[in-house]
Structure formats: C-alpha cells, structure tokens
C-alpha cells in the first residue's frame, strides 16, 4: 500500500510498510504515509496504535524491523538518530525529557550542531572563535526563550520546571536546532487550555517559517484548528490519510477512532 494523497515530490518525510514488534506485540504493522512539506500534519489514533513507536522509528531512536523511510530525498532507513537529526529532523518526547541537571538556557545551548566550543582543539587554541559562536548562540537562545515565554526561567534547573513548562522547553530546544522537520509527540498533553492555545500558535508560527510539522495529537479540536493534513493510525497500520473533514465521512475511521470522540462531543 502506498499513500496516494501526497506525492513523493511534495513530501518532506515518509515511510513505507514500517513494522516493529516488541516481544511478539506488533506495535507497528505496515505503517505507510507521506508528510507534506511545509504543512502541519496530525498523526492520530487510539492509545497503543503505535504513534509514538512510529515517531521513535522516524527519528532514529528505534530501528524498525522492516520497511523503509525517507527524509526529503534521503533514504534514512535504520540510520542513527544523530545522523537523522543532522539532516534537520528534530523531535520532542511524549513524556518530557529535559536535561535535568542543566539550566533552561543550557538546554537550548546544547542544541546547535557543530559548535566550535565542542572541540578540544578550539577550546585551547581558538578561544576567540569559541567565544564568538557562543555569544551568537546565547543571543539566539534568549530570543527563543523570550518567544516561548521561558525567559524568566532561563537560569532555573530544567528538572524544576512544571509539566507545561517542560513541554515548552522541549519545543524551544528543538526549535533552537533550526529544524526543517519537527516531530511533536503530544505537545499539548496535560496542558491547560490557555497554554494549548499558545502552543497551537507557536506551531502555526513555525509553519509560517517553513518548518514541516508532524504532531501526534488526541485533541481533535486542535487538529481541526491547526492541522492541514491528518494520518490515522490504528493497530500499527495507516487507516486513512487526508483532511479531517474528509475523514469524518470515512466509516472505517469513524468506527476505529473518531466515532467515540465525536459521540463524546469533543468536536464542536
């Protein structure tokens, strides 16, 4: 099966027939989709559908058992996550993984690739170059922190942040690395409605800056408001792809996932 709705030429990221089992549990079972470049795509599906596992595979954190994947025109199947990251794919984690012993500012400062100050030789023999790069990174990091409302917390230990603040930190750290493609695993889970609104705004801003976003999201209100494209995953397979309004007509999708949500009145 291949995803017909987005052509490979318009796709920033995609996968074909991905499979992954954990001790006999088929978490991903043939997932196939393309993520349109420059748009916001939602990855939805019931709990345990394999969404996080797909994100883990696409970002290189886990190796798939089978199938292929690509980032832009590069085949990235079974690549290490550091290599995938360097191609411009950044991700956040469903359960926030802040660098707890570092400050908020330092969490961002880790992100830029190939910093001169990460090389021993430069530290001792080209201190000027290290200083210059560091200065630029600090300025940019403070700007990002201001944008995401974390500026006041810049010197706090990251492990001391609240759940919502950690979600913001994860996004701003990924943004600091200057991603082309951003995978967000439930960026709004456990966050109050005002902050959901704000995060939605940030994601739209990123889209405006040309970033391709794939976000796992359970809240269909959010999906409706900000996502251009939707991928429905159920039992590790791609059930359907397209616009949310089209998917509502799809009986299979409704019964697998949307039904319960619509019945529960989550979509106004």
């Amino acid at each position: 099966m291949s995803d017909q709705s987005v052509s490979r030429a318009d796709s920033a990221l995609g996968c074909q027939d991905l499979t992954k089992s954990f001790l006999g549990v088929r978490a991903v079972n043939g997932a196939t989709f393309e993520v349109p470049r420059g748009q916001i795509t939602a990855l939805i599906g019931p709990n345990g559908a394999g969404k996080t596992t797909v994100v883990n595979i696409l970002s290189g954190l886990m190796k798939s058992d089978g199938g292929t994947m690509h980032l832009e025109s590069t085949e990235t199947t079974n690549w290490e996550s550091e290599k995938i990251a360097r191609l411009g794919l950044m991700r956040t984690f469903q359960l926030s993984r802040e660098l707890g012993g570092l400050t908020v500012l330092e969490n961002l400062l880790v992100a830029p690739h190939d910093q001169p100050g990460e090389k021993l030789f430069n530290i001792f023999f080209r201190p000027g170059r290290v200083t210059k790069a560091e200065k630029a990174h600090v300025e940019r990091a403070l700007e990002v922190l201001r944008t995401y409302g974390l500026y006041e917390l810049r010197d706090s230990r990251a492990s001391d942040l609240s759940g919502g603040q950690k979600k913001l930190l994860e996004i701003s750290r990924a943004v600091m690395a200057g991603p082309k493609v951003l995978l967000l695993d439930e960026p709004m889970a456990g966050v109050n409605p005002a902050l959901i609104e704000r995060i939605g705004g940030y994601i739209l801003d990123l889209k405006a800056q040309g970033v391709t976003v794939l976000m796992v999201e359970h809240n269909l209100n959010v999906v409706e408001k900000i996502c251009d494209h939707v991928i429905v995953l159920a039992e590790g397979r791609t059930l359907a792809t397209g616009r949310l309004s089209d998917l509502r007509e799809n009986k299979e999708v409704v019964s697998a996932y949307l039904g319960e949500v619509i019945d529960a009145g989550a979509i106004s």
Partner: protein
Amino acid sequence: MSAFWLYVFTLIFFLFDYFILAMGLNIQYGETGILNFAYIGFVAIGAYMTGAVSMPNSVGTGQHYILGLNMPFPFNLLVGGLSAMVVSVLVAFIALRRLRTDYLAMVLISLSLVFYDICNNYVPLFNGADGLYNVPSPLAGVLHLTTNSFTVVFALLTGVISLIMWWIMSRITRSPLGRTLRAIRDDDGVAAALGKSVFRYKLTSMMIGSFFAGIGGGLIIQFNTSFNPSAWLPGETFVVFAVIIVGGVSNNIGLLVGSLLVETMLVHLVAFLPAIPGHPGLILNIAAMMIGALLMVMLWFRPQGIVPEKLRRSPAAVAAATTSTDYAGIDEGVSHE
C-alpha cells in the same frame, strides 16, 4: 628534617595527586555519566609507563620490563598520561560503543581484572608481582636533593601540576564541550536526538579522564620510586569514586575536599598511626570500613556531596563557555533584554 614533616609532605603529595585522579574520574563519571570501574587500571598504566620509560635498559638491573629509555622528567610523565589515553581509546571501542551503562561497568571491571592479572603474572612486561622499583627520582640529580628534600620538593611540584591540570579541566568543563558531556550524562537519547555523536563525546571524555589518570599514576611511581600490583588492587577504583562522591560530583572544589577527607585522612593519615599492639593491620581495615560507611552515609543523606555541583547560570554560563578575553563583550550582549 623530622619524620613528622616527612609525613606531612607525603600527605600533601597524596592530597594533590588524588585531586588529579578525582578530576579525571569526574569528567568520565560526574560529567559524562560513564561508570568507569576500570579507572585504577589507567592509573596503573600511567605509573608503569612513566617508570618503564625513565628507567635504564632492563639488562643487568635484576628487573624485567619493557622500554627502559632513560627518559627524563617531565617527558616520562607525559608518556604515562598519553599511554593511558591510548589504551582508553581501545577500551572505548570495545566497551563504549553499544553497551548500556550497567553492562559497560561490568565489562570495564572485567577488563581491569584481566589487565591486573597480566601485570601481576607476566614478568617481561612490568616485572610481574614484584613491580618496578629503583625508579630514578626526577630532578634529584639536577637539584642535588636528598631523599627527604625530594619528598618536599616533589609534593610541592605535584601541587603545581595539579593546579595546571585544574586550570585545564575547568576550561574543558566550562566550555560548550563540557555542556554537551553533561547533556549526555543527563539523557544520551536526547543528546543523540539533538544530533550529538554520543560515542564520539564519550570517547573524548574517556581520553581526557584517562590522561589525568595516567599523570596521577606517573606521579605516584615517581614519588614512591616503585610501583607494584599491591598498589593498585582493583578495589582502589572505589576509593577514587568515594573521593568524588563524598566531595561533590562535578565540582572541582568538592573534589579537592573529597581528596582531603578520603584519601589524605582516611587512607594515608591512618597509615602512619602506630599499629594497635597485637593487631597489625587492624587500623587500615578499620579505615577501609570507614570509607565504605562514609560512602553509604553520603549516598543516603547527601548524594550531591559536601560541595554540590553548581548550576551554570547565565552570565556565568556565558562567561563559562569562554573564559577568554572578550568576555566583557559577551556580558553586554546577554544582559540586555
């Protein structure tokens, strides 16, 4: 000079030497999260190699060892440090590439046991169980030092060397490199997801730490003029761990405090106490138990150590990364909103 002052300067030597050793283990464990249970093996490599290159050709010395190059101080010491570093590269490729922390620790401890057995039993390498002795004292000839004045001069020299190493280490830990190592320590999955080559950084950290281990070991063999397997039982690694855990992981002052409390007071000071009549060795065993007890008390009540790790807050975080001349310029750039 009285025996008292000799004791004092011996204690001073070990204070500074263990400060160097603690800094080396700290960059691996405290900054990068590598549980290097083979650390004492790298100290031994530094000691043996420093000795072996500074001694004359082994023929006719009554000892068996490799090299024997009559190499003068401080070049012999550098060879010691660099040898430990080279071996750490091999070890990193064996153990550090794929293994999880706990497996890694087991592999490292096994490697250090194997290496210990080789040194203890294979005589042509470093004279087997007898180890190296009659190692030439550095500078003794040049400065016309007696055995006693050598102790004083070398203890102070070690102090100077430890200050230089401290400067080098702070420069590293405060740089973006140090920050990336701490990111790997806190969560290497996140570091990888940010595009950091985790193995390459762990390798760098292993190499720097092992160089410090080798230098610290080289200083020991120079100070004692001998070194043999009884001086580096694999359990010694845990004394260095105790130094950094008691003093404070990732804090250089803490490492110095830990070195003073654990190494100077509990290991060496007690060694000079007169034996309890009828119970030779009892005091040393009590001291070993006290180190164990102290370690447990600290881990239970104050796991961050006596002098805990400092957060690197922003002006510092910036200054930090730089410690160089155009720091003032940076400060401006940052403090503006």
